[in-house]
């Protein structure tokens, strides 16, 4: 089930909210049981068999959490964490990567049962949540949850279950026991949900058509202008798709009294790839930082650094150990996104830029330097989105060839110009709203009266968008979120 379809909007959500706020669910424990019940129903709607895998994940991680809480920060605790890693990552490996790896090396044919293993929706997200729970209990940062139903709700809570944000147990452990419900918070939630829905239905879904048209064309028939238009359309599509989903998840959380952390902060304003990753899918970046980058850097990387320092000196040792940790982290981030060589290359590109940015020197003229940094970062992000979208490395290479006028294609063609004409307004609106334009305007308004008119205007526009969204949801076909595949 997706948030943007009619069944969710007109049946699931109203029933979920009605029962949640009804006299039957006065007690927080009953509220949690209801939320767990509907979350499992939400997941079972799309994955009637793989729900068993998620239930198993809940049981295993609850037991491991209880077990590791007896031995925090000890070598025995470390072994329990290792069991958790083997189980969680093992399941992820089997369902996400085995068929791809074996297929890549020609070890299984397309019709074999292994090649037919389907990816359970959201497995990458809930696996990481479950893993962080056990590790945080081991680190002594969180207490083990006594009630399996609360661990179940943490892992399976439907707003963030299938496409994030990757919520940490520490963020909602208190909220599972006690949380406030207020009309203000509920209205904030509806507002935020509506923003996310608008991003998805009114922008992302439209831009998706333009991107698909460009990416689906043969390299020689795709004009340079249309190739750049398609890449830009996808860059905006994926931003509005994923940040829209996060907005909806945060909004839904608020409707049920939960506060999740932000997952996006206008990533396209970044002046470096390092900054971009502080603004894009923040929960994933922080997960890899806390559960892979730091453990690597505080452990094996220091040993590498010491050994390298004796051989080549301090400076080179720093470069070698930094490359060692960052390479592993960005390869893992790439592969997390999908079982495809395109994501391996994509992760490698992120590594190269982030590693290089540590050692580059800023331009002397700060203002000019900022402009150059913004433009180059934007172009790098745009280019990496091509390989992210491409079905294969060769597809990406052909697309780059089209962008660079290297595939015998025209600069401009009638086909491309027709579709650019059709979708240019979505692209312009998308570009505007991918930057903090509204925030800047709101900040600039000092006059109280003007501010009041602005706020009323915002509310009117939001009501209009909500009606428009409903029309789209009723009439629109099935259009899943990109991150469902991860």
């Amino acid at each position, binding site marked *: 089930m997706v948030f943007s379809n009619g069944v969710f909007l007109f049946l699931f959500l109203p029933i979920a909210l009605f029962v949640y706020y009804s006299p039957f669910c006065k007690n927080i424990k009953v509220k949690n049981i209801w939320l767990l019940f509907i979350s499992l129903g939400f997941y079972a709607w799309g994955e009637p068999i793989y729900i068993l895998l998620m239930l198993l994940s809940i049981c295993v991680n609850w037991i491991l959490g209880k077990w590791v809480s007896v031995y925090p*920060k000890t070598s025995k605790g470390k072994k329990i964490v290792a069991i958790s890693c083997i189980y969680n990552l093992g399941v992820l490996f089997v369902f996400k990567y085995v068929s791809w790896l074996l297929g890549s090396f020609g070890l299984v044919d397309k019709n074999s049962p292994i090649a037919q293993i389907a990816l359970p929706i959201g497995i990458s997200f809930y696996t990481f949540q479950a893993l962080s729970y056990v590790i945080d209990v081991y680190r002594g940062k969180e207490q083990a949850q006594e009630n399996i139903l609360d661990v179940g709700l943490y892992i399976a809570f439907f707003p963030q279950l299938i496409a994030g944000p990757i919520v940490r147990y520490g963020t909602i452990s208190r909220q599972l026991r006690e949380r406030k419900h207020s009309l203000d918070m509920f209205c904030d939630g509806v507002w935020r949900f509506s923003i996310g829905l608008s991003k998805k239905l009114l922008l992302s879904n439209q831009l998706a058509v333009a991107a698909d048209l460009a990416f689906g064309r043969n390299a020689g028939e795709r004009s340079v202008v249309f190739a750049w238009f398609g890449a830009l359309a996808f860059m905006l599509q994926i931003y509005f798709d994923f940040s829209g989903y996060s907005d909806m998840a945060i909004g839904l959380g608020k409707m049920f009294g939960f506060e999740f952390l932000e997952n996006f902060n206008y990533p396209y304003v970044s002046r470096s790839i390092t900054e971009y990753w502080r603004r894009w899918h923040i929960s994933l970046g922080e997960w890899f930082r806390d559960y892979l980058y730091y453990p690597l850097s505080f452990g094996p990387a220091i040993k590498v650094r010491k050994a390298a320092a004796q051989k080549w000196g301090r400076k080179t040792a720093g470069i070698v150990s930094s490359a060692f940790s960052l390479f592993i982290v960005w390869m893992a981030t790439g592969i997390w996104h999908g079982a495809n060589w395109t994501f391996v290359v994509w992760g490698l590109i992120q590594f190269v830029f982030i590693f290089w940015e540590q050692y580059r020197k800023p331009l002397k003229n700060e203002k000019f330097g900022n402009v150059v940094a913004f433009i180059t970062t934007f172009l790098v992000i745009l280019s990496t989105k091509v390989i992210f979208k491409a079905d294969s490395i060769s597809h990406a290479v052909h697309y780059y060839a089209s962008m660079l006028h290297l595939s015998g294609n025209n600069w401009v063609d009638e086909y491309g110009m027709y579709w650019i004409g059709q979708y240019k307004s979505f692209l312009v609106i998308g570009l505007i709203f991918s930057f903090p334009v509204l925030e800047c305007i709101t900040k600039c308004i000092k006059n109280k009266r003007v501010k009041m008119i602005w706020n009323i205007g915002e509310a009117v526009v939001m009501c209009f968008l909500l009606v428009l969204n409903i029309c789209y949801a009723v009439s629109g076909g099935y259009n899943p979120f990109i991150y469902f595949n991860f």
Partner: protein
Amino acid sequence: MNMKEEMKKKILELVEEVLPQIDFTASNSLVDDGLLDSISIVTLVSELSMEFDVVFDMNELEPADLNSLDAIVETVLRLQKQ
């Protein structure tokens, strides 16, 4: 010069060499304000552990331990005693 001052001088010289882009004397909330990001934290911790032969436990380390030059000095002194 007492031990603390001497350590502070050594650490300042070290960070000026390995993290010249960060002014460690400018803030008392280097981590909280984002002046020290994850890569800088790792560089700092690695260099400190090599220079002063101390072991940082990532499960125990808090942002407050690295938020200022004085806090870093205290942390290294504490780890040396362990």
